[in-house]
């Protein structure tokens, strides 16, 4: 036992064993060689590719997003423009409508006035004609009547027409009063 311990004690654990050193380094170099030259570059490449794939996807998504945003903006702008346009057109139509209505109202007024004026003129003309006709008729009838009553005595035309005129004037006076009333009623209507 003591001999065994003494034998073991001679070994200093801090003195490296040469064979172990060589084998340890050899093993490490094999690991380093394979990992460093082949396996880790492999995975580095794959990780980079994966990164690219993911990043690329994100980039594409971003691009699509930007595109969508741009389109949306465009639509919004167009919509705003269309709204503006519509408002403008509506306003214009309203103005035009107002103008047309005013014009039509004016036209109507004018036509009404014209019709009324024409009516008045017609009535006046009719009245005149009737008056003239009546005057002649009444004159003739009255003359005839008077002639029949007094025979041939009333042949003097001058006296005849004076008498007739006087008669008619008095007749006119009463007729004018009646026509004035009638015209007033027509205007009111």
């Amino acid at each position, binding site marked *: *036992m003591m001999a*065994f*311990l003494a034998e*073991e*004690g001679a*070994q200093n*654990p*801090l*003195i*490296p*064993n*040469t*064979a*172990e*050193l060589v*084998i*340890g*380094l050899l*093993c*490490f170099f*094999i*690991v*380093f060689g*394979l*990992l*460093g030259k*082949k*396996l*880790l*570059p*492999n*995975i*580095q*490449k*794959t*990780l980079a*590719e*994966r990164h690219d*794939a993911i990043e690329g996807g994100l980039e594409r998504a971003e691009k699509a997003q930007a595109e969508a945003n741009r389109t949306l903006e465009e639509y919004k702008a167009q919509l705003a423009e269309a709204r503006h346009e519509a408002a403008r057109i509506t306003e214009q139509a309203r103005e035009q409508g107002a103008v047309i209505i005013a014009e039509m109202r004016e036209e109507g007024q004018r036509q009404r006035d014209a019709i009324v004026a024409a009516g008045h003129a017609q009535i006046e003309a009719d009245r005149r004609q009737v008056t003239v006709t009546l005057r002649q008729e009444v004159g003739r009838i009255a003359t005839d009547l008077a002639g029949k009553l007094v025979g041939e005595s009333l042949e003097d035309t001058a006296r005849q027409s004076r008498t007739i005129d006087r008669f008619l004037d008095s007749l006119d006076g009463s007729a004018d009063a009646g026509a004035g009333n009638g015209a007033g009623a027509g205007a009111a209507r």
Partner: protein
Amino acid sequence: MSAHTLLAEAGCHIQHDCAFPAPGLNSFDFKPIFSIGSFDFTKPMLLAIICMLLVVGFFWAAFNKPKLVPGKVQLIGEIGYTFVARSIAREVIGKKGDKYVPFLASIFFFVWFMNIMSIIPAAQFPPMSRFAFPVGLAALVFITYMYLTFKTHGFRGGVKNLVWIDGLPKPLVPLIVLLEFIQNVITRPFTLAVRLWANMFAGHMLIVMFSVATWYLLTPSLFAAVAGGSFALAIFMTAFELLIQFLQAYIFTLLASIYISGALEEGH
């Protein structure tokens, strides 16, 4: 097989007039599996080769034909790769660190797999508790550190990068230069190797200790209760080691990247 295991298997128990076969340095020495002349092929070497095959095999399965949409193995590999690339290289060195990811990833996974061997049944030994293995890796890191320092800054700039700090009061300069030199050129590689080695060494020692003690105390007596406690501790230490194994691999890689970062840095 180490000596104490043989003793334990021989039925060495307390109360059997048998001294406790305390684990010691002998727990880290193995009889050669075979010898060629003066070259002894031992279990740690076998484990190192197995770990190398495991790391290469795993990453071969994961990354040999990588797909854009990863399978399960590739996904696990990617998580591991991304851990080193992002959390170590990018975090410490920055964008320039991308070049060194293969180196750092190789270190991380090789060391981690080697460490895990500590609690894999039948293996149950961390090769990193043999000083030669961490020394080899630390030497590689140190060579890389020196190479990058002088390649980036030239000879004068490189030396300045190793020993000089701007804006020091004049009287302090010689002291700081000496300290910086010792720290960067001597302490760094040494502690890098020793930290990993000592952690694995101590972890293995603890697990062996409690395992052997469990066996040693397991007699039909009150000691059996103590053996139960020892066994519980052995289980606990095994779980704890799982954490330490990862942590040490991570720290080793992290320090390597810090050194590389220091070498690439513009003055300091």
